[in-house]
């Protein structure tokens, strides 16, 4: 019981409320995103997407980010093939038992400085699969998570807005 309470107290609440950012249009979001990427990641943010037992819904949404409509590449953000090339890991899905080891190795293979973002409800706390014998209930059980993006699955615009919020938070943290 104490452990649960401690966990409640310790886990940071960085879930973005669906607030003012969702009213912005994509170009406006991008206009805010670009300078932060330039400032914090020297103009190039490389993301490696890890599917750890997800339902693939989150992957579809993340793939949509690179299509002609959202086109996240124009803001300096791109998806890369190897964790060695990445600055940030997007982990989706409640981590199935088979993928736990793989996820850990992916984390170890990413060079510092790195960030881990749990994308989707499944990755944050197990989502609809919570309590199943086949999964660890959240990514934070396996590797340290820095930020989370809720949604089942989060729409691409939500991901962009959340990414903007994440970058703002990092900016604030580094300024302190």
């Amino acid at each position, binding site marked *: 019981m104490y452990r649960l309470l401690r966990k409640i107290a310790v886990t940071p609440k960085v879930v973005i409320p669906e607030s003012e950012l969702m009213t912005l249009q994509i170009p406006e979001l991008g206009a805010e995103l670009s300078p932060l990427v*330039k400032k914090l*990641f*020297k*103009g*190039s943010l*490389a993301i490696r997407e890890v599917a750890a037992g997800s339902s693939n819904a989150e992957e579809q949404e993340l793939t949509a980010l690179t*299509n*002609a409509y959202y*086109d996240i*590449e*124009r803001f*300096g953000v*791109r*998806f*890369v*093939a*190897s964790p*060695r*090339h990445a*600055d940030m890991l997007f982990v989706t899905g409640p981590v199935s038992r088979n993928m736990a080891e793989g996820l850990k190795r992916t984390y*170890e*293979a*990413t*060079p*510092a*400085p790195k960030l881990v973002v749990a994308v989707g409800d499944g990755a944050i706390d197990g989502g609809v699969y919570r309590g199943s014998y086949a999964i660890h209930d959240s990514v934070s059980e396996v590797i340290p998570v820095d930020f989370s993006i809720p949604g089942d699955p989060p729409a691409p615009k939500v991901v962009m807005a959340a990414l903007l919020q994440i970058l703002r938070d990092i900016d604030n943290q580094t300024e302190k």
Partner: protein
Amino acid sequence: MIFFFLLQLVAIPVLSPLAVGIIRKIKAHMQGRVGASVLQPYYDLWKLFHKDEVISEDATWIFRFAPYLIFAVSVAVGIAVPMVTAVPAAFPGIERLSFLALSDFLVVIYLFALMTFFLALLGIETGSGFGGFGAAREMMVAALAEGGLLFSLLVASVIAQSGNLMGIVVNLQMMPLETLFPLLIAFVGFAIALLAENSRFPVDNPATHLELTMIHEAMILEHSGKRLALLEWAAANKLLIFIALGANIFFPWGVALQADALPGLALALVVFAAKAAVLLAGIAVIESTMAKFRIFRVPDLLFTSLVLGIIALSISITF
């Protein structure tokens, strides 16, 4: 003279990420997107130099040392390539100047092969499955593409009666147009070799995330931080060098023959930029309109490049 040497030294490394950025931008526009800015590769390299590295325990000193060597060789070859001026005419009597020694076309081809050799070793280095596959396929492509590359440059060399790249450009500018007809055929062969050696469509996909479709990407999968930056930069250098060769050896008009007349240099720069832009656009269009070949169709393409070179050579020595 020293100024010119230094200029040639830094021109290729400084401009090559721009070339890669231009290709990506044109591809993005063809896909209906805006795409990243043309300066994005610079940001990528800059960021990578600021990151830490993770190196595999199975790696040896070759892993730590080869990226520097590959980058150094790509910079060295960059000195030898005629971009805006062709040196001998500009500075008569300096044939013995050290950097001209590099301009022999056989030296250039073999230095590229040296880069490929070490890149393949890097792929096998860490003992991952994909690196090894990438290395095997890379050596297959390189072994077969070398013929087409050598023959296309040989045609230019035979027509111009010179083995030195700078000398070829100078001589070709002065020759009548009819003798330059085989160069068109040779250029097609050279273009195929360019696509093969620089891991472009239809031989390889530089933007794929699927390891089984990677050749060049597979070999750099294990690298991170500054070594990754050096390898990507070396690949960009190689691309720009090939573009410069394609633009200036096969279409030599516009290359300044005097390095001291500033208006002439400015004009030559504009002409080179235009030629390079056309070639880069061509690569981007090929990448956007064609599918990558199945691996066992690639040798057919490369043998075609060789045969085109042989045909061009036969025409040029018969007439």
